[in-house]
């Protein structure tokens, strides 16, 4: 176990040597509450706590995976990072620039360095626009670019994502789901962004198409030196693509680990439950399933203490009363669980 860890932190250290000091994106104690039941004159009677105090950083060239069940705030987190919605509190810094200090024009120019790939390749492409207009939309703000050079760029983009330049003048409905997702990817890399937030980019695709799209994303990462924030509920996909993985539960990160630590020595009971629920193709390697009981608690009335205690087999009185902080247990590996604070893995 120890050797695995050392190897892991070694890689991280090497990365840090090459990297410039400022991380690409840094998030501090990010909170987003959505009001419920409010109207013109009435104050909202409650709040959906979609993201509840999330902090992490993503270095340049890194692929940061965010996993969790549906409704755990993954998508909200992605939107917050892109500045598409504004946080209730907390701070987001992109390349050292604090979002809250930027005016509209500066915000737009920062946004151009980040892009998004959506989950649904059907509703994320305007049905009334041709592929050419869709994928060159990020170039709109640049005036001094002739139509011909735009077309050349667009044709090149299509080739890069595995479509043909002839497809430029087609409408989105003429493509399959996987092809549409490629169009979405072409749009996202149009301005050579540094960061792409991929919000479940493959979960609506067939498994065979999933692999193609994932490989395409990996290839583009090399071509453009991209960083990804890869949001997914599919552990296998995240594990394949990401360097660092954060597990979210009810709006908060419960475990954050480098990839190699992740599958072998995940420490949070929730992470372990997620890992156990990944289908295992080899029947001899299948362990005993101890599925989680119950449903995710409501993000409107968060449970006291550790939000996972309602479903955790190991929950103690302390868990029910006091929320555990996210603490480092090994270099680069953070866990928010009382069972793990200062204790070894063997205690399980």
């Amino acid at each position, binding site marked *: 176990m120890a050797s695995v860890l050392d190897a892991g932190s070694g890689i991280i250290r090497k990365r840090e040597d090459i990297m410039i000091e400022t991380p690409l994106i840094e998030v501090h104690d990010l909170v987003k509450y959505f009001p419920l039941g409010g109207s013109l004159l009435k104050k909202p009677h409650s709040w959906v706590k979609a993201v509840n105090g999330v902090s992490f950083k993503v270095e340049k060239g890194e692929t940061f995976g965010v996993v969790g069940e549906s409704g755990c705030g993954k998508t909200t987190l992605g939107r917050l990072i*892109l500045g*598409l919605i504004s946080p209730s509190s907390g701070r987001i810094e992109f390349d050292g620039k604090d979002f809250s200090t930027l005016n509209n024009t500066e915000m737009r120019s920062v*946004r151009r360095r980040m*892009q998004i790939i959506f989950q649904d390749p059907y509703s*994320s492409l305007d049905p009334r626009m041709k592929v050419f207009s869709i994928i060159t*939309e990020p170039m*709109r703000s640049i005036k001094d670019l002739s139509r011909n050079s735009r077309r050349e760029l667009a044709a090149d983009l299509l080739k890069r994502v595995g479509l043909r330049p002839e497809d430029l003048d087609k409408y989105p409905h003429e493509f399959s789901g996987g092809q549409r997702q490629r169009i979405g990817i072409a*749009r996202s890399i149009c301005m050579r962004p540094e960061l792409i937030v991929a919000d479940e980019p493959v979960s609506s695709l067939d498994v065979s198409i999933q692999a193609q799209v994932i490989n395409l994303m990996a290839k583009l990462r090399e071509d453009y030196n991209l960083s990804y924030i890869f949001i997914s509920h599919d552990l296998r996909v995240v594990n394949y693509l990401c360097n660092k993985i954060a597990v979210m539960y009810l709006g908060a990160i419960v475990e954050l680990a480098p990839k190699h630590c992740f599958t072998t020595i995940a420490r949070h009971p929730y992470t372990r439950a997620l890992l156990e629920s990944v289908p295992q193709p080899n029947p001899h390697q299948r362990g005993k399933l101890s599925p989680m009981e119950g449903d995710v608690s409501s993000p409107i009335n968060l449970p006291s203490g550790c939000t996972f205690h309602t479903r955790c087999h190991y929950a103690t009185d302390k868990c029910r009363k006091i929320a555990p902080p996210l603490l480092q247990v090994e270099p680069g590996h953070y866990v928010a669980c009382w069972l793990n604070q200062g204790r070894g893995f063997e205690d399980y």
Partner: protein
Amino acid sequence: MKRFFGNLNFTLGFILSLFIVMMALTSLVWTPYDANSMDALHRLARPSLTHPLGTDQYGRDILSRVMVGAVNSIIVGLVTVGIGISLGVFLGLISAYFGKFVDEAIMRLSDLLFGFPAVLSAILITSILGPSIINAMLAIGIFYIPVFARLTRAVAMTIWEREFIEAARACGVNEIYITWRHVLPNILSPLLVQATIQFAVAILAEAALSYLGLGTQPPFASWGRMLNEAQTFMTLAPWMAVFPGVAIALAVLGFNLLGDGLRDTFDPKMVRKR
């Protein structure tokens, strides 16, 4: 194109509307007689070879007047729907975009306008401003503003929720551009359907107002005006009432069918069935 003409409603509506439009266009360059020239010798003449649709009490040729009346009706349709669309779409987009107070204000104002029966409010407006075709068009046009405002608001709100809007925002384009390039094109088809149907309603409304003497004033030809003048001579010269009446019926039916046909073909579910 094939998709449209595969629809019976659309095809019928298209032929009828085309007929009315061609009639109006022809009258601009040629009519059998001057629509306003009186001929005392041939008053109330039956339909014949010289006067295919007969003449009225002043000996004016009914065919010529029906043709000129078509121009009148089409202008009324265009102007009223134009007023309704330009202001209605503008208000509807504002309502959908800003929501909250702005939305409430615009929509309650629309409700207020909607609360009055259309013809009644048109009569009110024309009797205040004085009977004339301009005032009649204004009255109908004002009534159309909430019709288009509501439709635009409802459809635009669903478009703003779509992911491609978020994608556009992530591309760094501004909200006006998004409205222009993403929202408007996507609400165009329901607007077109509504415009066609309201076009038919406008023709009917103008005829009603002119019939009451509140719209087109003599001596100008209007289908409603002709019906009004014909009523005194109903038994003597029924053709005076029948032909303008048929013209109104055909125009209204034509544009209505056209609108229905357009709606059928734009409906994505219908498209999938084909």
